[in-house]
């Protein structure tokens, strides 16, 4: 029985010279100098740090940050009609919607109903963006805000007023080609 021949699949491995001895010491010295050169080049290049609280990494336009609720620009009515599709789509189950009927005296949204309560628990949210996809009226979109840390979990439950409010534009947007 002949031993199995690997054929053309064999790739010759390039091995370095064996360590030790005078040659090894010489190579180690050379490699040390090469290492010193490498680190010195880093020194010359200068720091690449972004000084975070003062400087910020710009986000891409499709960055999924904190949610925003929208109004119609002309009439000022809320786009959200309280259909709860976002809550149904949410895999983290962090959206709570309680709908109420619009009345002629109290007209909040453009549809028949409106969201009387709209809460997103941001400590649960995984920022998947499914709510944005599920919304039939583009009432909820993902914003660019990513600085949401807080001292208190209950402060991370964002109410409708907070989501509707114009966010403090704290995250710079990446310019085209940047």
């Amino acid at each position, binding site marked *: 029985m002949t031993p199995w021949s690997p054929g053309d699949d064999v790739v010759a491995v390039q091995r370095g010279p064996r360590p030790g001895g005078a040659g090894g010491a010489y190579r180690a010295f050379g490699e*040390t100098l090469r*290492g*010193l050169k490498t*680190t*010195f080049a*880093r*020194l010359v*290049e200068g*720091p*690449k740090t972004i000084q975070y609280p003062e400087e910020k990494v710009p986000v891409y336009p499709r960055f999924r940050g904190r949610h925003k609720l929208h109004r119609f620009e002309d009439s000022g009515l809320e786009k959200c009609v309280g259909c709860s599709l976002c809550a149904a789509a949410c895999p983290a189950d962090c959206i709570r919607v309680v709908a109420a009927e619009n009345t002629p005296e109290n007209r909040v949204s453009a549809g028949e109903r409106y969201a009387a309560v709209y809460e997103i628990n941001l400590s649960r949210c995984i920022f998947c963006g499914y709510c944005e996809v599920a919304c039939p009226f583009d009432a909820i979109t993902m914003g660019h805000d990513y600085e949401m840390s807080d001292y208190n979990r209950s402060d991370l439950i964002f109410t409708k007023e907070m989501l509707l409010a114009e966010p403090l534009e704290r995250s710079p947007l990446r310019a085209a080609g940047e």
Partner: protein
Amino acid sequence: MSVLAEVGYYEAWWIQLLKAVVIFAVVFQLVPIILLVERKLLGRFQHRYGPNRVGPFGILQPMADIGKLVFKEQFRPRTSIGWLFAIAPAISMMTACATVAIIPFSDTVDIFGTQVGLYGIDTSIGILFAFAFGGIAFYGLMLGGWASGSKYSFLGSMRAAAQLISYEVSQGLAIIGVVMQAGSLSLTEIVGWQEDNVWFIVPQLVGFLIFLVAAFAETNRPPFDLAEADAELVGGYNTEYGGGRFAAYFAAEYLNVLVVSGLTVTLFLGGWNIPFVDPPTWVDPIVVIVKIVLFSCFFIWVRATLPRLRYDQLMSFGWKILLPLATLNALVTAILVVIW
């Protein structure tokens, strides 16, 4: 009473006291500077800024570090040996300071009509003084690790002992070439020789390189920081130390770097000389200090580059490569000195 060593030049006792205070004050000011420079440079070597929050450009960072350490509780493990545990960092600190005494910052100069030597002491044994205190310095590490009563400290101190002993031999042999060429052990005379001829780094290049490598090992700096070896021994000999005692070890390490830089500058890099330029005498101490700081930056550069050696590699490198090379260097120098 037998004379152990002659002293080349000495002044009135009050000048010596004043001198001691001034030298100590100046060199000790370099410690926080080196501390900061090290962290900043290490950062730059890694595309970072390093500390830049405490004070303008982070210059108050060493103050903050020291302040934090000083106000920490002095604790010690129950298994430790109290008095040894307490004096070990003091030994480290004292030996590091004592070696500063022999680093010459200039020759004797005329200050307000008084001849003052700008060095702590100019003994005829010169460089041997440094080695004597280097020999005692390892007790600081050794006793500290041993008295901690912890296995990691113990391992660290054992490594420190073995490493310091093996590299001290090569370090001593490396400078024999310098001593033979200069014909003196006194550091001022060695610098004087370099003033008349060339810096010793030129004729004694091999000796310089051996001294350099051994100096890294002697000061427990990376890549030879096996006594500390944070990754494998937690913190080595100073694992159990905290607060002011740790600060003493920490300062002693950086003081040692400065001292070894000072010795290298004196022995190989011409002390207060600048080739082809003859500055006035008052520039001399500044030249020495600038050279010391620049050379300390080289220590930092190497720290940023090289990984820590394996322990057996360290030992075989010391005994199998460095020691024969140092012996050969001394031998060749001896033959050449005799022939010339």
